[in-house]
């Protein structure tokens, strides 16, 4: 397992059901607010209504022209990227001539989940080919690169729910090997009827607000959003202060089941081990863990057990109660939240948790909690058995 040099994080952007900017998200989470509701953006004939966390009204498209040009996933990715770039002191003009890479994780952003088109295709009506043309224009990483006229590596990662975390780890590796000097990295996903139907078919969604790690947990609430980080090499950043540092990244596959994590967390432990080695930090250095914490029985049991074994006593939380499970965006959002929490010296309560589950072994924080350390861990588990871990360090502010 190789050692990885730290990478500076100079900008953060986030939007989701908790807020339309990173600061809005952080403030609402620390106020303990959450707003799950039945889906508004689409309807189904499903006899049961599961709760979701959609973006609240007021989300402004980042580009007026993008309304009919790009998918909602791409609009979310662009919005978070523009916030993160502004936070880092960049814009399209100042990026010109720089070697800038884009790595974005998504789940639905690359899938032909065009059920309106397909319904017409199956029926008597002529399907609207504009839907298909929009899909063909809407590769999230490529859209960011195209809109900002960037020249550099571009990658859209589709590792299911660890996509955003993997995209950040991959983007950082581009900087280390000199493939580019700046990377826009994170994840984005919109809420769709297709994923709503899919997750409910797996019987892992909840009709009530989700309860990560609680003994009564029934499943997840789907969400939508985007979380983007700007990463910079030292020769570009120079004296600019970092918001945080990416110290290490690890990933591994359970090679066990398509949708369930390995009961012993084999892949998660391997991913943690790689990230610790890469960052040259010990488990004792970790101040807190931002878990995947979806609120599904299997995920939380495995994560809790692994945490009790690898990081016993380290405070942890799930932010899924505030954001919903945003799939490919989750890793990007939670990396941004983790860096912002290190800056703030405080983590929010793990909303939804009330009663411990002996099978989980560990319990998350139940109130906003002060933290003194400088290093935290954010982890994602995914369909396909993917596990991805980021070790993040406090910035210079």
């Amino acid at each position: 397992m190789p050692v990885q040099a730290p990478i500076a994080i100079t900008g953060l952007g986030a939007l989701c059901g908790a807020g339309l900017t990173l600061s809005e998200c952080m403030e609402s989470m620390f106020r303990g607010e959450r707003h799950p509701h039945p889906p508004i953006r689409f309807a189904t004939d499903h006899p049961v209504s599961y709760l979701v966390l959609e973006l609240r009204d007021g989300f402004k498209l980042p580009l007026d022209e993008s309304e009919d040009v790009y998918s909602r996933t791409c609009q979310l990715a662009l919005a978070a990227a523009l916030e993160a770039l502004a936070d880092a002191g960049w814009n399209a003009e100042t990026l010109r001539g720089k070697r800038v890479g884009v790595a974005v994780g998504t789940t639905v952003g690359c899938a032909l989940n065009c059920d309106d088109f397909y319904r017409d295709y199956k029926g008597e009506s002529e399907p609207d080919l504009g839907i298909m043309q929009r899909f063909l224009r809407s590769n999230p990483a490529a859209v960011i690169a195209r809109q900002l006229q960037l020249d550099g590596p571009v990658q859209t990662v589709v590792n299911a729910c660890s996509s955003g975390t993997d995209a950040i780890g991959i983007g950082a590796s581009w900087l280390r090997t000199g493939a580019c000097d700046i990377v826009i990295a994170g994840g984005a996903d919109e809420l769709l009827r297709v994923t709503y139907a899919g997750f409910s078919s797996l019987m892992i969604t909840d009709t009530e607000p989700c309860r990560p790690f609680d003994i009564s947990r029934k499943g997840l609430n789907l969400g939508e959003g985007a979380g983007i980080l700007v990463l910079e090499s030292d020769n570009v950043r120079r004296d600019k202060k970092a918001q945080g540092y990416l110290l290490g990244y690890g990933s591994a596959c359970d090679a066990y089941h398509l949708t369930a994590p390995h009961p012993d967390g084999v892949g998660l432990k391997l991913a943690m081990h790689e990230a610790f080695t890469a960052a040259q930090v010990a488990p004792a250095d970790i101040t807190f863990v931002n878990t995947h914490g979806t609120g599904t029985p299997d995920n939380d049991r495995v994560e809790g057990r692994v945490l009790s074994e690898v990081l016993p006593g380290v405070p942890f939380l799930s932010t899924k109660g505030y954001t919903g499970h945003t799939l490919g965006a989750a890793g990007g959002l939670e990396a941004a939240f983790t860096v912002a929490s290190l800056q703030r010296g405080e983590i929010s309560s793990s909303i939804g948790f009330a009663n411990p589950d002996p099978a989980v072994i560990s319990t998350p924080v139940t109130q906003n909690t002060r933290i003194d350390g400088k290093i935290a861990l954010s982890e994602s588990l995914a369909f396909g058995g993917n596990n991805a871990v980021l070790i993040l360090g406090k910035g210079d502010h």
Partner: protein
Amino acid sequence: MRIGIQGIGLTGGFGSSVDSLHAALCSGTVVTQQGRVEHNGLIDTFPAYQASLDGLDEFIPKRALRRIDHCSRMTLFAAHLALKDAGMAEADRSRLGVIIASGYGPLKTTFDFLDSYLDFGYACSSPTHFSNSVHNAAAAHVSMQLKTTAPSLTVTQFEMSVPSALLTARQWLTEGRVDQVLFGAVDEQCDVLRYCRQQFFGDGEQGPLQPFAFDTQSAVVGEGAVFFLLTRDETAIYGHIDEVKLGNHAVSPIKISQDESLIIGADGHKECGQWYAQVAKKHATSAYTPLYGSFPAAAGFDLAVAALSMRENRLFVSPELTGAMPLTPTEPHPLDDAKLASLKFGKSGEYGLIRMSR
């Protein structure tokens, strides 16, 4: 760091082995099959390059394939063939990373899942189709079948999927995250894709595929899977990957030296043709898409042709060139120490350039 190609496995319109691709390259011809789609009571027939799965049961029992879809079956077949070709069928796989590029992912299963709720209501949505429609399902099946817990990655980026994913394969080996990477590309045909292509391109989908007629739409749909076993070794059966470069030609023009021969991914799509035309005016180029068709993962087959060229130390003749061509491909010649690169363009000028050497 140079990355060695130690094994190749593939299935496409030309057959299901390195030998069958080699035979197609030598003959310069692959006969297309006839695709057939029934939609709204009308029968649509069209030329197509279809992949065979004959021989898959050498690696995986039929019973184990029951819930595995066509896209993942092609993936598993090519992945096993690559390991066998590299002599790694029984080797330690604890540090074998898996990376897959796919332009569209598992299309048929995606629509099968939509069928489940559009036909029978949302309460009848199929969990099996849903879990197999996730784009990393094929990579997951490979990791599970091979029992490798090393990192796994899937990239979906239309035409740029292959070079982008290969960049990460190279990164993983360079950084020492893994000791080998099983790198592959896969795309499948489906009825809805055919419908869309027919609507968009009409007779431009009837072939024959003319990669050098850059301003003519002459695509022929294809499908298939191709895998490579990549290592850091200095000795390599199929040559080395020296560099993977991604960028946008419209923003910053691509730099290619005069002594580089190019295998271009021109596949009869007019909207990408202008970019190839600019490059082909100045450089020696070859194209082999008439042997496997037009689909995003075909860039992986271009890479396989480049690898075979390295192994044989010669550039193969560009196949089945018909019709008026504003530019002619380079004549076949020994490669010796000449540089070879595979070049793929997207619609907006984005490119992936894979530089290779023996």
